[in-house]
């Protein structure tokens, strides 16, 4: 399922003194079955953007289409004045296409297909045991109890929590373990699109790496993975496409390698460390091709190549 944003804007608390505009005229196509990273400084609107995909927030204007589901504003816009008949008809047709009423089961179906793991998801745990908490999602989506428990076990093993965790209370776990349980809670519903907001914040490097590798595996199995992060090293290593957000707008959509080497400080971002290292080597006189360096391996190969040539 591709995701298509069309001229989407979003305002928090409209028409009140607390009004704040979080997304501005966003048009964006996110292809399916890719590993997509969304980056940008704090407060640039990343979390707001991904909540539109799950219909947790509805746009103030514009719309986002996920498969055949269109998340549209609650109110229809007024028809602009001075249209001729043909344009009026086109406007009507477009309006009829976009503003279809959603039943609660349509929204539920959407949320089954789009799994969203929030920033700090550990606050959503509530069942007595880890196993039950993870099975909570699938059960809500109408899976039978035994099957839900089975997929819960699978999901827990995938995030690296073994049998000894199944019967423990989620409140006795460490922060990182809670995070893993929360991620498993979404994996257990086997979504077609998996959205994760800062999943590695607060995890130790090994656990962070495992988690990212898990997401890659999930992508390989045909799921779209959308990752919100500040960590350009992760973007360099795992993402196939990167969306840079700034001030509620999409500043750039490109392949990660295209992004590196530009001045990223204007977005409060940094080049991946490995890329910076390569640049430094080049500055100091090593003739290497820094294009497309994303990992230690790439760098090693580039150095070997330059040695062989020179």
């Amino acid at each position, binding site marked *: 399922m591709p995701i298509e944003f069309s001229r989407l804007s979003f305002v928090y608390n409209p028409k009140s003194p607390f009004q704040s505009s979080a997304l501005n005229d966003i048009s964006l196509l996110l292809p399916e079955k890719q590993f997509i990273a969304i980056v940008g400084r704090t407060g640039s609107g990343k979390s707001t953007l991904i909540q539109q995909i799950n219909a947790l927030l509805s746009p103030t204007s514009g719309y986002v289409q996920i498969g055949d589901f269109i998340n549209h504003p609650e109110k229809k816009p007024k028809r602009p004045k001075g249209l001729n008949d043909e344009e009026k008809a086109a406007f009507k047709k477009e309006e009829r296409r976009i503003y279809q009423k959603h039943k609660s089961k349509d929204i*539920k179906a959407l949320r089954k297909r789009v799994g969203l793991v*929030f920033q700090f998801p550990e*606050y*959503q745990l*509530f069942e007595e045991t880890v196993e039950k908490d993870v099975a909570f999602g699938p059960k*809500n989506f109408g899976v039978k109890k035994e099957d839900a428990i089975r997929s819960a076990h699978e999901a827990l093993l995938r995030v690296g929590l073994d049998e000894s965790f199944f019967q423990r209370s989620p409140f006795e776990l460490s922060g990182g373990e809670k995070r893993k349980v929360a991620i498993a809670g979404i994996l257990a519903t086997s979504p077609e699109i998996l959205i994760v907001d800062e999943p590695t914040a607060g995890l130790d490097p090994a656990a962070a790496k495992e988690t990212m590798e898990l997401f890659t595996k999930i992508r390989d199995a045909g799921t779209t993975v959308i990752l919100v992060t500040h960590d350009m090293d992760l973007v360099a290593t795992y993402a196939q496409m990167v969306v840079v957000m700034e001030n509620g707008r999409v500043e750039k959509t490109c392949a990660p390698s295209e992004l590196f080497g530009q001045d990223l400080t204007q977005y409060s971002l940094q080049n991946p460390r490995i890329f910076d290292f390569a640049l430094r080597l080049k500055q100091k006189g090593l003739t290497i091709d820094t294009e497309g360096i994303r990992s230690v391996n790439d760098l090693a190969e580039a150095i070997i190549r330059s040695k062989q040539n020179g």
Partner: protein
Amino acid sequence: MANFTMGRYVPYDSWVHRMDPRLKIYALIIMMVAIFINYPTWTMTYTILGILFVFTLILLWSARMKFTSLLKSLSGLWFMVVFLLVIYILVPRYSEGNEDWYFLIGNFKVYWESLLEAGKVFFRLVVMLSLSLVLTATTKPLALTDGLDWYLSPLRWLGVPTPILAMIISLALRFIPTILEDVQRILKAQSSRGVDFKHGHIFAKFRAIISLIIPLFVSSFIRSDELANAMECRGYDPSTKRTKYRKLHFRWWDLLEFVIVSAIVAGCLTICITGFDAYSFFWGLSLK
């Protein structure tokens, strides 16, 4: 999703906002008295409540609040209306001389006076709620606590730990928006796990509420624990006297407002005590 903005401070700048919080609390309390005492006749009751309501609307308008926000906050009252009507219709009330003042539904007598009584209760609630709304929307929670603290301070002589009480109240007020944010966040997190908070049969609703309440409690406990630690680390000691960053000042316009509010309520009290009926006094009307 649900709108939780009701009762929240709205940062505008108006003379209502600038009023001394102590005066606002005083005004609210004595106006409540004026709202809830009994007036000689129902015509007088409705007239006085009407005047008080208009007064409230003037406050609302001066505070630059929208009338629609008031309507929204009051819209939850429809349940009360139905409830009141049912109770007052089932329990007939009429005073002497008014026994025949009724209409029939089927062959059940509905006394007009019952309906008037129900209307009175409803009207009182509306005026009271609008007044409280003006108070909470125009006063910073901290200013409100400072005001309360001032009223509580005489209790110190009785050994009541008023600074601690004030601290508790101000922390509670301080955490209302935070907890509402938590509610929103948990609502969203559970919704994305397929919980439907709006639809579904009663058992599903119950499950949905549980999935909200438990994480809410847990995060509130964690938060209060962390807060207590942070306060202690920064040397908070409940038993010592605290100085204030903002001092409350009573200014001349506060005095003016004090006189106006007191005069209005004094007028209401006089009418109540003397049983003065303006309608029969001025126009010689005697309504039932």
